[in-house]
C-alpha cells in the first residue's frame, strides 16, 4: 500500500492561533510526523503559510481536519512524496 512520506501545503490561516500553536496542533493530530511551518505572507487578518509535513505515514484527512479546526483553509498541495510499501 502506498503511504505519504512528505507533503507540502499552501495554507491560509487567521493570525490566531499563532504559528507555534498551529504547528503543534497539526503535529498532535499526525502522530510521528515532523511539521515545519514557514510564513510566506502576512495580511491584515490572515497569514499565508507553507506547511511541510514529513513522517512514516501521513494521514491527509487528519491534517485537513486539524487545519479546519483552526479556521485555516488549504489552498493547494504543492508537493507530495509517496512510497509504495511492502
Amino acid at each position, binding site marked *: 500500500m502506498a503511504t505519504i512520506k512528505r507533503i507540502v501545503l499552501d495554507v*491560509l490561516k487567521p493570525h*490566531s492561533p499563532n504559528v507555534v500553536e498551529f504547528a503543534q496542533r497539526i503535529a498532535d493530530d499526525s502522530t510521528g510526523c515532523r511539521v515545519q511551518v514557514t510564513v510566506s505572507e502576512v495580511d491584515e487578518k490572515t497569514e499565508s503559510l507553507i506547511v511541510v509535513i514529513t513522517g512514516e505515514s501521513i494521514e491527509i484527512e487528519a491534517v485537513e481536519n486539524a487545519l479546519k479546526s*483552526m*479556521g485555516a483553509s488549504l489552498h493547494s498541495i504543492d508537493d507530495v512524496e509517496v512510497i509504495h510499501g511492502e
Partner: protein
Amino acid sequence: MNMLTELGLLIRLSRSHQIARRYFVVNGFDGALTMLGLNLGFYISGSVTTSTAVSACIATAIALGISGLSSGYVSEMAEKKRELRELEQAMVSDLEHSVHATAARLVPVLIAFVNGLGPFLIAMLVTTPLWLEQAGFTMPFGAISSAIATAFLVIFMMGMLLGWISGTFWLWSALRTLAIAVGTSLLILLFTP
C-alpha cells in the same frame, strides 16, 4: 487535545483573559461604589435597622450581578459574532467548525459569568459587617459605619490591583481610586437631604 488545553486555546485566541480581568475590575468597582452609596444613605437616614440594610444590600448585589451577567452576555455575543463574520470574510470561508466559532459561542458565557460575579462578590464583601452584626457579632463603630469603612478598604485594594495591572506604583493608583470614593461620598452627603 484535552478539554483544558482546548479551553486555554479558546481563551488565548479571543484574548478573553484580558477582557474578563477588565470587566471584573470595572464592574467590581461599580459594586463597591454602589454599596458605599447605599450604606451612606442608610447612615444619613439614621433609622435603618441592620436586617433592613442586609436585605437591601443583598437585593442590590443580586441586581448588580444579574445586570452584569446579562449585559456582559449580550454585548460580548454581539462583539464576537461581528469578529467571526469579519474573519470569515477575510478567509473567504465558513469557520463554523473551527475554534473561532467555538470561541464566539463560549467566550460570551465566560465573560458574562465574570461580569456578573465581579460586582456581586465585591458587593457581598462590602456588606460583611452587616452580616456579622446580624449573626451576633458586635461591630466597633456600628454595622453600617463598618460597611462604609469596608467599602473604602475594598476600593483602595481595587486601586492596588489596578496599579499592579498597569505596572504603576500601587499606592498612587490606590489613592486615586480612594479619592473617587471620597468624592462620591461628599456628593452624596451634599445632595442627600
